[in-house]
């Protein structure tokens, strides 16, 4: 049994009598010890999908008209408040894009980590355990750092504190929502290296959300690419990077300049990302797709397994 299994998840945002579907029929699994990347541009539904795993999207405005989120075989969407409290920050921990906004500015970081320990561990929360966690995430001189306030730390250090806090509960699944987007490249490299190392040592699963395909190659076992609320391609990471199948994945990879690449003109994707509520009918990528057929405008393609372990949402998978 996989650790997490999302089945046909649908998420609507209700505003007055209007209802906008942000996530439409998303399914994927994460096995124990596996790293899965969720890739997509802004507004594709990747963050709300990830937040749904611990039911962290406020309801209302959110509503789940269908689908299941099975964590260890139990549906998160049907859990009581008390059960959810055990899941949140316990079985599933989160780290977010902007660490300075996620930490409380008026408490010392040591106390913030201790709070997480108090909530999720039976034994007494001690300074020693906090120091051990800070050491685990590579913060130098943790004995003096536990007395720091968040503003006394750099962005990279703050993100390490967030990771330490997330690890306090010994989670089975760490959800990292764009954890390095706000950081500089050299610090980004440090944090990715840390996540890889922690995964090896602690054996937890990671769901990493990113818009950067480069990060995928560094860290992921499998990738799901999202576009306009749907998964359009799902595949083992290296195979996807070597040979993307869906026209959107291909276009996305071709539109990014590569280091030491040639000076050819970049291949553009025409138009812009569709916004919530104005997703095209039929295939949602068809207005921007270079290989669209007339049929694509009307028929919505299903997600099908075109090769072993490779799933693609396209009407013409043979042409891919």
């Amino acid at each position, binding site marked *: 049994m996989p650790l997490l299994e999302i089945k046909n998840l649908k998420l609507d945002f209700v505003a007055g009598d209007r209802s906008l579907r942000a996530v439409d029929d998303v399914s994927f699994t994460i096995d124990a010890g596996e790293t899965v990347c969720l890739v997509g*541009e*802004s507004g594709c539904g990747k963050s709300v999908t990830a937040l749904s795993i611990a039911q962290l999207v406020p309801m209302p405005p959110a509503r789940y008209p269908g689908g299941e989120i099975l964590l260890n075989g139990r549906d998160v969407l049907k859990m009581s408040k008390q059960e959810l409290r055990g899941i949140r920050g316990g079985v599933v921990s989160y780290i977010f894009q902007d660490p300075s906004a996620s930490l409380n500015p008026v408490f010392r970081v040591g106390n913030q980590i201790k709070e997480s320990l108090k909530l999720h561990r039976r034994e007494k929360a001690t300074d020693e355990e906090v120091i051990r966690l800070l050491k685990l995430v590579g913060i*130098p001189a943790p004995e003096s750092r536990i007395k720091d306030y968040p503003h006394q730390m*750099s962005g*990279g*250090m703050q993100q390490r504190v967030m990771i330490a806090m997330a690890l306090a509960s010994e989670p089975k699944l760490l959800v990292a929502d764009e954890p390095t987007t706000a950081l*500089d*490249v*050299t*610090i*980004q*490299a*440090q944090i*990715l*290296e840390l996540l890889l190392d922690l995964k090896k040592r602690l054996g937890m699963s990671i769901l990493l959300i990113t*818009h*950067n*395909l*480069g*990060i*995928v*190659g*560094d860290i992921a076992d499998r990738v799901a690419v999202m576009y306009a609320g749907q998964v359009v391609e799902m595949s083992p*990471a*290296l195979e996807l*990077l*070597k040979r993307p199948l869906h026209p959107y994945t291909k*276009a*996305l*990879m071709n*539109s*990014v*300049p*590569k*280091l*030491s*690449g040639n*000076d050819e*003109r*970049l*291949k*553009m*994707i*025409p138009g*812009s*990302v569709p916004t919530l509520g104005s997703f095209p009918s039929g295939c949602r990528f068809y207005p*921007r797709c270079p290989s669209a057929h007339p049929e694509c405008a009307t028929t919505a393609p299903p997600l099908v397994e075109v090769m072993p372990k490779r799933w693609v949402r396209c009407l013409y998978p043979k042409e891919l």
Partner: protein
Amino acid sequence: MGAVFVSEGIVNLLEVKNLKVHFPVKHGLFSRVKAHVKAVDDVSFAIQPGETLGLVGESGCGKTTLGRAIVKLVEPTAGSILFEGEDIAQLSGSELRKRRRGFQMIFQDPYGSLNPRMTVGQIIGEAIDIHKLADSTTARQKRIVDLLKAVGLDAIHAQRYPHEFSGGQRQRIGIARALAVEPKLIVCDEPVSALDVSVQAQIINLLQDLQQKMGIAYLFIAHDLAVVEHISRRVMVMYLGKVVELAEAKAIIGAPKHPYTQALISAVPVVDPDSKRKRILLPGDVPSPINPPSGCPFHPRCPIAELPRCQAEIPGLREVTPGHWAACHFAK
């Protein structure tokens, strides 16, 4: 030092010589000046007409301040900025306004840099009015439409307000506004980093097309090395307010000479799964520019630093191989 960057026989569009921008750090009841942030510290370089010079560095390295100082949005503390041979560092008021026609700026945030209460036509037209570039209303209108078309928008868009556009379209409006005065140099401060990946390529291609058509020079500031390499002829790397390396784009990415540049390039995540690059992990963070390390500012994080030399001696920017400048004692 600035003179060494001048290529023989080519007149530079912009020459920056020993530019310093220091911000005072004030403290206490009477706002005593306690220290200075040396955001830009003794920087010299030149840009030729129609050339793109890339500028990379991590946050806080002074790249944005340098860009703003060149278009005089911040006052330089010392040094000179020669634009077409004339020093604009000390100019102000109407003199500066006249010269500003030659250099414009495009900003990172396409949401924050357009006035939400003005229509696109008014935003672009304002620049035309200030510099009196149209002698009749019809000429002005025609110029606005031409500019919109040049950046891939339609005449009808002139009546709309910024909130009606997507991020990529807004960045196009920002570009049209900069183009309105026919500048020779545009400082592009992270023009694509706020945009979706699929839209970035559109803006990069547009900037390149416009350069080819109009011969504009760019100072292209970004933190994404791949984007900078793609668009630039030469690239300059900054660390803690100083230029640490300056060379042709291909040379700097293919064979970086400064250990900081080497680490920076190795840290970029790559899409290609077959690449077997060894990542150089730098320890620690970028130090505070208020109190930078003595000697070489990079020495506390440098994998090849040799004490006591690197701690004591500030390495100057020197030409290691022809056209390839690096500020490291050991670069060869």
